[in-house]
């Protein structure tokens, strides 16, 4: 549908936004990266402190377009929640940010995604380095079938972050502590990570992600396989981690989005419908579709 590629869009973008965007705030005009034409998202997609900027992102699986023309900023020290009905492209978009879609045969990503102004699709960017900067936690807890220690030590090991054994111990220790898991596993670091409970496994995965000291943590429905108690622990953890990292979370639970996030993005059938401060989205959404979803009319 959108035949203009993002680069052309960038060059032609003499006028950011368009007439169909009623709520362009002054913050949007101050943003360093202009919005491409054809931008239809309601609300403020830009932020004061953008770490990652996405402009006009399209994803195709073969001939099928999974997400259309998504533009959004991801801010530092903030949790961005992405909500929407199943199959609306939230996870697909999340996986664009650390280029995990590269691993899916037939997947094609168009558009401009930059971290601190550096295009992540640029030839000079190594995908390995990118993923070290942008950690990811998956829907199903997926610890490696190795010991708890080895799970956390894996990232620092492959990236050569620890000079010696003591330093590695220190990293493992700190990461487990920050993930709120240390007290529970300190006596069984050598036991397999898969022997932990589901909630512990997910926190182990978070510890594993923060062990390489990333700037962003992407979470793809991290609590959908967990019980309410484990979920509450992870949510508390997210609140703490927000002090140091930018967090993007995909969730099916609107309550969870409301509890943990500062900004919320609503996706619908591959379109980014509305972005705004979480309290505004949940109390006074601007778009009809958002309102229908929030009020439980569908989804």
């Amino acid at each position, binding site marked *: 549908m959108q035949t203009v590629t993002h680069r052309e869009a960038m060059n032609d973008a003499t006028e950011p936004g368009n007439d169909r965007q009623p709520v362009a705030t002054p913050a949007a005009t101050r943003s360093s990266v202009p919005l491409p034409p054809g931008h239809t998202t309601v609300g403020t997609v830009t932020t004061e402190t953008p770490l990652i900027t996405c402009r006009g992102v399209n994803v195709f699986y073969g001939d099928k377009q999974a997400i259309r023309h998504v533009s959004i900023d991801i801010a530092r020290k903030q949790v961005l929640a992405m909500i929407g009905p199943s199959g609306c492209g939230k996870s697909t978009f999340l996986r664009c940010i650390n280029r995990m879609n590269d691993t899916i*045969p037939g997947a094609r990503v168009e558009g401009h995604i930059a971290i601190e102004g550096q295009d992540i699709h640029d030839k000079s960017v190594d995908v390995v380095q990118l993923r070290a900067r942008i950690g990811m936690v998956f829907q199903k807890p997926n610890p490696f*079938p190795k010991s708890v220690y080895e799970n956390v030590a894996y*990232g620092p090991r492959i990236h050569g972050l620890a000079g010696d054994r003591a330093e590695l111990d220190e990293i493992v220790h700190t990461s487990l502590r920050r993930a709120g898991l240390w007290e529970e596993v300190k006596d069984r670091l050598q036991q397999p990570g898969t022997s932990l409970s589901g909630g512990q496994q997910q926190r182990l995965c978070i510890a594993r992600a923060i062990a390489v000291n990333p700037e962003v943590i992407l979470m793809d429905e991290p609590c959908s396989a967990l019980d309410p108690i484990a979920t509450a622990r992870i949510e508390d953890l997210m609140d703490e981690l927000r002090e140091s990292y930018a967090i993007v979370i995909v969730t099916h639970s609107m309550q969870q989005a409301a509890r943990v996030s500062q900004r919320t993005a609503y996706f619908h059938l591959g379109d980014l419908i509305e972005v705004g401060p979480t309290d505004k989205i949940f109390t006074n959404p601007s778009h009809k579709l958002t309102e229908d979803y929030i009020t439980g009319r569908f989804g």
Partner: protein
Amino acid sequence: MNSTSEARAEGASRVVLRTAAATQAIVAASIRRRNRAEWRFRAYGLLAVSAGIAFVLFLFGTIIGQGVSVFRQAYVELPIYLDPQIIDPDGTRAAEVLQTADYQSLIRSALRERFPEIEGRRNLRELYSIISSAAFIDLQRRVVADPALVGQRLRVDLLADDAVDSLLKGRTSRESPEQERRLTDQQLGWIDALAADGSLRLKFNREFFGNGDSRDPEQAGIRGALMGSLLTLLITLLLSFPIGVAAAVYLEEFAPRNRVTDIIEVNINNLAAVPSIVFGLLGLAVFIIFFGLPRSAPLVGGLVLTLLTLPTIIIASRAALKGVPPSIREAALGMGASKIQTVAHHVLPLALPGMLTGTIIGMARALGESAPLLMIGMVAFIVDVPQSVFDSATALPVQVFLWSDLPERGFVERTSGAIIVLLLFLLIMNATAVILRNRFEKRW
């Protein structure tokens, strides 16, 4: 249109209006039919399984019934005087002299000593033929190994003739007329006398496990064939495992999905179904005729069997790689592991048990294969036990094939005996595969 929809509504209502009892009756009738069908299906299944078990039992029964006696062999224990006058008259004790000495005459004089009453050339020849004509080989081997034995009196187990052996095992009858027997009445008398004082007995058959092939059944053993099989399998394993695993990893983890890889995949699957004799022909054309490698050598056998087992190993390894959950790959890639690190650190260790299982099953198939080895000349009559992969050799299944052609009773027994050894190896390999799978299969 209106009328049809009305009719449909009416039909629907008729079904709905059926009484609960009437519905139950219809269901009950169909349940009886369904139960009968299920019972019938179970009976067919049970029948098929029992037929299978019966055939396996019959197979094992006949093979073990015919072959288990091969592990024991008739030996005559006689005191033998290692006469220095005959073995080494000059007293040099040189290996060459000891090698070529006339041990046969020592055995004969021991026999004459045991039966001093027998006279006449014909009678003596009958007496001598109780002992295998190859019995001296063992004596010669012992003396060459230890020259100090010369001049001593030794009690030696002499290999009996295969006619004596089969008589002792009850395979030939004493009752048939003398002309139809291989043993005369007076030979039977001597055999009884030797058996009565305990010098003629069935003992562990060291020839069967220690010798190569022979024209005399009592001398023929499986050691040559076993060594040939082991050397061949060694080559096969060394080549097919790394190549197969590398190919599987590349195809599964790295290769782009396109027409070329599709064609490769189809070809691998087809190769797995190619008759093994075709691989033999290929080996003959490529390795022996084109590359000029030695005929009948385990090296060429191993190369041919590598071609044969590669598709099996690749298919099994790919299945094992497919079995590794994608979440593990995602976890590693998400951590910033490179593709090769993901495969080497996480995917391969998890897939290895499955790969090893596939490899062992492929090896077991290679061990039982005879047709391709016939094509490359591993079917020759070879007495010497092969010492390297370049020596002429034969393989166990081929040995079975060779012996099964021979008419002597002793070879019938040896055919089954070799099959027992072969099956034992296959059993061990398959058991190893199962144990590996159960022990090292990680759960996640």
